[in-house]
């Protein structure tokens, strides 16, 4: 698809356009511009490197939301063996924002659950912009229970702005569908690896994110509230989203420091969407490595380890009287 550059990418794109222009002109006139072109190319590379190695939190949020960013099914296509999708929560419906099913990756069997966004209006109507309803969370839990029954490890790929804030979602108890997953995922005796591949929008992300290992792509974010939502409440204006993004410490590197994320998975220099092959290779090897690490543990150790991981989260002081 054609990519519209993000605001901070524009200087790079402009230089690239100039270079293209130069090459086009010179080709017609048989003038040697190799030297100029090489210099420009070098300048572009320098600027690219400088820009992408110093991304602000807000710039990463924009990359995480980039319309060309690879989604769950893109990774399935790129680096999974097979994927047999299973539908429905067995009660009210099927949620296309939360596909799931049996899959293989690197020769391993997994139960895959995750969020799926759409790339155009038609797809987004189907996928609801990756915002799942209660039936999505309940389908995911049904599949996770099935995985436990058959001893199949669970892989959760997280990419959602948040659980859907709508009337029907409330009427069908979206809050409980998430809460129930938090409680039940804590008791699973099979390994669970979760990867935040794009947006980790609050409870909507955590609702399939109670895992033994939590991994995160370099430009993904994971936050208690969207930067816009935080800005609207604390700054009284959504335009302060960049400041809120910084304050929330929502990048993969920040979250690694807090011990929330076990591994940050590298992306191609200018984001996963610029090179799906590289991004999916990195994703796949990280997933396999962490499943492999968990292989030797007993079901009880798997479960206890997950609780221990989440039990320790929180920072406070406990002065002795």
């Amino acid at each position, binding site marked *: 698809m054609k990519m519209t550059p993000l605001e901070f990418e524009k200087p790079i794109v402009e230089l690239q356009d100039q270079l293209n222009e130069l090459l086009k002109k010179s080709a017609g006139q048989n003038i040697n511009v190799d030297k100029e072109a090489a210099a420009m190319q070098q300048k572009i590379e320098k600027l690219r490197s400088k820009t992408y190695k110093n991304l602000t939190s807000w710039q990463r949020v924009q990359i995480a939301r980039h319309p060309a960013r690879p989604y769950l099914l893109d990774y399935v296509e790129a680096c999974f063996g097979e994927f047999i999708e299973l539908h429905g929560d067995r009660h009210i419906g099927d949620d296309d924002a939360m596909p799931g099913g049996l899959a293989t990756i690197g020769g391993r069997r997994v139960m895959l659950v995750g969020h799926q966004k759409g790339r155009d209006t038609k797809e987004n109507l189907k996928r609801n912009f990756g915002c799942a309803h209660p039936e999505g969370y309940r389908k995911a839990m049904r599949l996770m229970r099935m995985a436990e029954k058959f001893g199949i490890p669970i892989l959760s790929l997280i990419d959602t702005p948040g*659980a859907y*804030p*709508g*009337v029907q*979602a*409330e*009427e*069908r*108890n*979206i*809050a*409980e569908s*998430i*809460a*129930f997953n*938090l*409680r*039940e995922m*804590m*008791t699973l005796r099979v390994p669970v690896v979760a990867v935040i591949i794009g947006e980790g929008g*609050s*409870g909507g992300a*955590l*609702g399939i*994110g*109670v895992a033994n290992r939590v991994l995160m792509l370099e430009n993904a974010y*994971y*936050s*208690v*509230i969207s930067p816009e*939502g*935080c800005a609207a*409440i*604390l700054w009284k204006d959504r335009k302060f989203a960049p400041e809120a993004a910084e*304050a*929330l*410490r*929502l990048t993969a590197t920040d*979250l690694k420091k*807090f011990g*929330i994320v076990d591994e940050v998975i590298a992306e191609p220099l200018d984001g996963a969407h610029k090179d799906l092959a590289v991004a999916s290779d990195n994703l796949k090897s990280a997933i396999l490595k962490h499943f492999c690490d968990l292989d030797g543990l007993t079901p009880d150790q798997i479960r206890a380890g997950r*609780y221990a991981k*989440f*039990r320790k*989260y*929180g*920072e*406070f*002081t*406990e*002065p*002795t*009287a």
Partner: protein
Amino acid sequence: MSFFKKLSLKGFGEKKKDMPEGQWQKCPACETMLHEIDLSENLRVCPKCGHHYPLDSEERINSLIDEGTWQPMDSHLRTANPLGFKAYKEKVEASAKKTGLNEAVTTGRGSMEGYPVSLGVMDFRFQGASMGSVVGEKLTRAIEAATAERRACIIVSASGGARMHEGILSLMQMAKTSGALAMHHEAGLPFISVLTHPTFGGTTASFATLGDIILAEPKCIIGFAGPVVIRETTHQKLPPGFQTAEFMMSHGLVDRIVKRHDLRGEIVQFLRYFMPAPTVIEGRAATVIA
């Protein structure tokens, strides 16, 4: 409890009243002029129309727990500022000063008609009773104590949700408290969740909706997303009574709506079904409950 303390009326959906410091105020539901003494002697329920005002955690605990049995837990925990969020420390300190509490939830052990319970009560006056690390930790410890000591767990919620100022660590409290409840659940112990006005966001999407029994105070507003967010995101028209306790009950989301004066009796009635009859009332001589 001071009779002259300014009432907190910053409830969701209620107009913020600028009543002068004084002993009289107008009921936001029926507009009757009420004296502070009438209210405080009536569990902050309007004697005329039954409107439920917010109740401080201390008054709530007194209304539920057997006299002389309350042992608070973890009131020494103090909130940190893990993200270095601007002005956060000052906000928490101001709330602590205003309420005399260390954080937005008070937890402890006690008994109800002799039944051993672990009780957590959220206090909306403290940063909208949002859940950060201390709230999550105190609740988790109270639940874990309940599991270890075979107590029923009771949590009275009122909360704006997860606390933004502690970022991802607040989000993780949802998993932590729910995980502790998983162990309590597996131990075959009862968890009774009481929803009061207002309960939203990360609180609703974790422990508050995991009760074996879920009770709600009349007309309280309960939800995941706030009505403004829903309207702005979806442009949907909100049905009448949306997110009230009555609406939630008609959609099958809560077991019963219980008036504040009946709450203790209701909870005890469930404990009679779920727990072995108590033989020893905590801190007092043995009494057999019929």
